[in-house]
């Protein structure tokens, strides 16, 4: 069964901003799905429409075969949302916030207390249960929103940048937690600007830009598209100008390091031979940042060219 299927989704905000220009998406039950895209691409707008926070202009949404237009109650009962912006009552205590959310889904207080304790302990917030939300740190607030989103045991969990501003250790533990609930059967859709996060968690991925899906595929086949690798070379002696390296594209980083693009088919032996012959001594070699990031930039740039072409 499809956990989510979106078709022909359009959104024009009052004021005229076209946030979505006909989006089609489909997410299988049990999937861990990444929705990526640059700032302002329309990710939060799409999520807002799916979760009833934003009115759509056109299109249709089905969640576990319930139609949002004809059976919104059933759709809402299936979904848990971790929004991008904090949206709890900052004067309410942490545990109250989770319990109230359970209440809105009709879960009796006693049952809700059991679930809230479990979630708050798992997300390391139990010590803060009596603290008002205002006094939590940024990372704690994010985790509070995760606990709140899960208290009614949704079949589909949607997280809009859940790890923004979260430290590395907590981020890793959040990843473990999300993998665990995904393994237990919860379908997860996640947006993030940390591409290594998407790479490490998600099986399928869609990239959205200017309100359009520009890529919708499995993480594996996306990574397979990576043709070029970027290496950073640290140099023993400072250089003033880039050496001439025919066949390779090199960029100056600073006087003690340079970046080289290497085609997958090319290999790096020849590169080192040339460097040696020019008397350049390399002290270390590392892979530049995230490969997925490169691809992402590439796709978004392509998309931008396409849309300027079609506009012209």
């Amino acid at each position, binding site marked *: 069964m499809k956990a989510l299927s979106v078709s022909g989704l359009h959104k024009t905000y009052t004021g005229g901003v076209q946030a979505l220009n006909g989006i089609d998406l489909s997410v299988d039950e049990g999937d861990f799905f990444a929705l990526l895209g640059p700032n302002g691409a329309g990710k939060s707008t799409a999520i807002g429409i799916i979760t009833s926070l934003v*009115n759509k202009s056109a299109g249709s949404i089905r969640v576990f075969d319930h139609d949002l237009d004809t059976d919104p109650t059933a759709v809402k009962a299936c979904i848990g949302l971790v929004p991008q912006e904090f949206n709890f009552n900052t004067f*309410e205590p942490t545990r109250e916030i989770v319990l*109230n959310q359970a209440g*809105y*889904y009709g879960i009796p207080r006693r049952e809700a207390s059991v679930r809230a304790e479990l979630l708050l302990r798992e997300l390391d917030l139990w010590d803060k249960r009596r603290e008002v939300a205002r006094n939590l740190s940024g990372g704690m607030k994010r985790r509070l929103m995760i606990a709140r989103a899960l208290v009614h045991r949704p079949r589909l969990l949607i997280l809009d940048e859940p790890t923004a501003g979260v430290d590395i250790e907590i981020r890793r533990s959040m990843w473990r937690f999300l993998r665990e609930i995904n393994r237990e059967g919860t379908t997860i859709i996640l947006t993030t600007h940390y591409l290594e996060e998407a790479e490490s968690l998600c099986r399928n991925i869609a990239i959205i830009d200017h309100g359009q899906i520009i890529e919708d595929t499995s993480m594996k086949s996306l990574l397979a598209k990576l043709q070029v690798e970027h290496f950073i070379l640290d140099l023993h002696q400072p250089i003033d100008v880039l050496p001439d390296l025919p066949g390779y594209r090199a960029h100056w980083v600073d006087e003690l390091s340079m970046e080289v693009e290497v085609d997958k088919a090319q290999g790096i032996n020849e590169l080192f031979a040339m460097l040696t012959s020019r008397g350049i001594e390399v002290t270390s070699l590392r892979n530049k940042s995230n490969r997925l990031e490169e691809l992402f930039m590439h796709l978004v740039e392509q998309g931008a060219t396409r849309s300027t072409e079609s506009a012209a």
Partner: protein
Amino acid sequence: MSPREILTAFQTIVVKEVLRFLRIWMQTILPPAITTCLYFIIFGNLIGPRIGDMDGFDYMDFIVPGLIMMAVITNAYSNVVSSFFGSKFQRHIEEMIISPVPNSVIILGFVAGGVVRGLLVGLVVTLVAMLFSDLSLYNAWVTVSVVFLTSVLFSLGGLINGVYARSFDDISIVPTFILTPLTYLGGVFYSINLLSDFWQGLSKLNPILYMVNTFRYGFLGVSDISLGTAYTIIVIFIAILFLVALRLLRRGVGVRT
């Protein structure tokens, strides 16, 4: 949602609303007690004796029901308008919007919060009043039913105001420019029998007059208007405001983009 789930959701909203105003009791419960204390001292004790009788009662005894009603109206209204606007402003209204709780239950939950605040403040003011005059009930049923219905009506009004409000200014416009004048002109401090025919006629267009008078009837057994008319007017207003509120929430006015 099943009826039991709906009841759970309703209880959740009510408890949340009540806790909200209790947490800030210095802003919500104390001020009306102090204000009415001042009214009682100034109008009841200092000026009242010089005024003499009003509709055959001590001036103090005459104004007590009106002052209680005034506190109930203001507090029921302002509780819901500030709570609803606050939940839009801080965006936690989204917690309810994404959940399956029906719009009518959201409305009833907020309204119940306003009713509890209105009645609680009404009770506090009544206790204060007992220090200044010998209150006795003429008809408890009338007193209780009319104060309850009135707080429902103004809670709904506050909700609708909260839906439309875009800034903190917007939540004080209606109370300042409509509610307070109508209350003062609604026979809290005088019997409309003192007025000329024209002004009496005009006063009878003011719905608050009917509530204040019915409530006063519950205490004193006198009223400038007929009780039947009063109840009819109040119930019609409640029905209209409820339907308006429901329509606004359905369309997502003020909460959905």
